[in-house]
């Protein structure tokens, strides 16, 4: 059993607060991704779980047992590092069997298990090579195998894919997913890549400035962000976030900014007028050639991607308003042409000046 609980975990380096009163419970077998920009404390959190950093205060419990004072090797965890951290002077096979040797597993048994995991991550042909002879992707597979072989209750992965190129990253992402399916172990994965988080996680913990901003399933995080920060961080292309103000006109709430004026759903009737930021995902902006809709804007740029077409509009701010339309139906629009845009009313988010989502 490896339910991992972090209870008001706090870490400071001198005056700098790296992790601030962080609490989360990670269920046995769950795949949790800590995601956030660099310096948000996600790696520090992972390293505290591993035992490489001592928390300033707070508790770490694994399977109900407090492990704050346990050495890393006594916590029953496995870790994959961003730099792979292979032992450069040992062959791939020696790298993989290292953990078993430390546990005094007999040689014959070691050889069998090394063969097994090597086959599992498809590196059987590399066993006699030195790490320096392996490519980046191969090295990471070796690092995975080295961790797998010790059969840890929980896998800690610290940005394991960030040193790889895009294609390999996708490939190894799928590998991580498959391993999690097969092994049914707890995975704690740290990344700054929102796409990795979305595709891998059962649950995402979005971190910012040492605190968890939001915890939830990828769908929750994507479709129900609690703050401007979360809304902005997830999605590609990212959410349209337009600064403006809420006003009441003609008996209904409206959003006004430099370049547009949009009627808001009636639920915002009770809201006091004032500065707000409107958020809407590109796929929830409807585009129709001609006039009408919530607002008419001139097209700035058209990007036909094949499956979709991305349309960029001038809305009077630095950041263009983006809309996605399926297929290539709108790829023929001319730059400068005015079109009608409709904002799906139940997909509009409003964020207050403090960055928090306004909920009613």
């Amino acid at each position: 059993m490896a339910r991992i609980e972090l209870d008001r975990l706090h870490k400071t380096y001198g005056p700098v607060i790296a992790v601030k009163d962080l609490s989360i419970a990670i269920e046995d077998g769950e795949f949790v991704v800590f995601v956030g920009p660099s310096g948000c404390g996600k790696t520090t959190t992972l390293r505290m779980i591993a035992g490489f950093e001592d928390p300033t205060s707070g508790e770490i419990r694994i399977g109900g047992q407090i492990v704050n004072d346990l050495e890393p090797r006594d916590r029953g965890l496995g870790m994959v590092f961003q730099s792979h951290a292979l032992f450069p002077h040992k062959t791939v096979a020696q790298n993989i069997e290292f953990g078993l040797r430390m546990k005094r597993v007999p040689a014959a048994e070691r050889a069998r298990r090394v063969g097994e995991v090597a086959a599992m991550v498809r590196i059987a042909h590399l066993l006699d090579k030195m790490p320096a002879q392996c490519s980046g992707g191969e090295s990471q597979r070796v690092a995975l195998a080295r961790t797998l072989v010790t059969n840890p209750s929980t896998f800690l992965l610290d940005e394991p894919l960030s040193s790889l190129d895009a294609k390999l990253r996708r490939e190894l992402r799928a590998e991580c997913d498959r391993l999690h399916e097969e092994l049914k172990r707890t995975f704690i994965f740290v990344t700054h890549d929102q796409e990795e988080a979305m595709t891998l996680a059962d649950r995402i913990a979005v971190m910012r400035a040492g605190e968890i901003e939001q915890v939830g399933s990828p769908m929750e995080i994507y479709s129900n962000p609690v703050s401007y920060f979360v809304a902005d961080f997830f999605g590609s292309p990212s959410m349209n976030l337009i600064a403006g103000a809420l006003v009441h006109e003609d008996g209904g709430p409206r959003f006004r900014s430099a370049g547009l004026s949009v009627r808001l759903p009636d639920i915002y009737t009770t809201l006091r007028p004032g500065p707000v930021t409107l958020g809407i995902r590109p796929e929830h902006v409807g585009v129709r050639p001609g006039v009408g809709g919530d607002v008419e804007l001139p097209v700035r740029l058209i990007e036909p991607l094949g499956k979709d077409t991305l349309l960029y509009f001038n809305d009077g701010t630095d950041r263009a308003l983006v809309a996605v339309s399926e297929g290539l139906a709108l790829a023929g629009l001319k730059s400068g042409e005015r079109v009608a845009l409709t904002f799906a009313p139940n997909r509009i988010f409003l964020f207050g000046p403090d960055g928090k989502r306004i909920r009613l």
Partner: protein
Amino acid sequence: MTKSRRGLVTTIFRYVVLTLWAVVAFFPIYWIIATSFKIDTQWFAWPPVYFPDPPTLANYLNVWLGAEQYAQTQYAISSQKPLISLMNSAIIATTSTFLAVTFGSVIAYGVSRYRILSDVRMFQLLMLRMIPPIVVVAPLSLYYSALGLLDSMLGLILIYFLTTLPYAVWMTKSFIDEVPREVEQAAEILGASRWRTVFEIVLPLIRSGLVATFLFILILTWSEYLLALIITKTQVTTLPVELSKYQGSTEGRVYGRQAALAVGITIPLMIVGLVIRKHLARGFSFGMVRR
């Protein structure tokens, strides 16, 4: 002039200059080797004798084996025992170097991983080496006299160990710094103890660096003269001290013998250097850990 022509001229010019410089730099070494094979009348002959004629082994046999039949009487030094000095030097230099590298790397590990010494302390450590040895010789011999360490192997080993320790710490630290922490942590989380990690991961990775450090300090202690001269008398003579005896007010300048001794002092270091040259190239290039 065409471009390739000009390139050729530059290359030739470069080689001429470098060759001339090499001749200037290597001439003293050649001169010592040549002199060691000269008969006594050619040592100070004018015009100089560039090639020993006839070459003789008399200098070597006399100096190293004390073979009297090769001694031209007026140049024989009866009290010398170069083979014993060679043994003394070997024992003292290797022991003190071994101690310096061992303790130095342990300290360096602590500094690199646990910051047991601040940057200021580390600099102070290096500053110790900036004190000219002659400054400390007088107080040191007083200490040594009181401790009964004068003219003893232990005395020399101790002082060489302590004076080369800063180098050992600084050099080995730079190698340990090159070993990524994550590699050590990977070993730890896989179940290795601290000691196991050091012996199985860190030491093999910095082996070349340790060998390079060892040779560097061995050269320092092997050729150290001042301290050896002052704090030893007759019991423990090292080779550099022995060498100096061939140039004194009573003996005159016994160049041939001195040259034979000098060649003998140099050869062991060159052999060591050749044996470990693979490590030296890697150790001094600092590139043994792939990140």
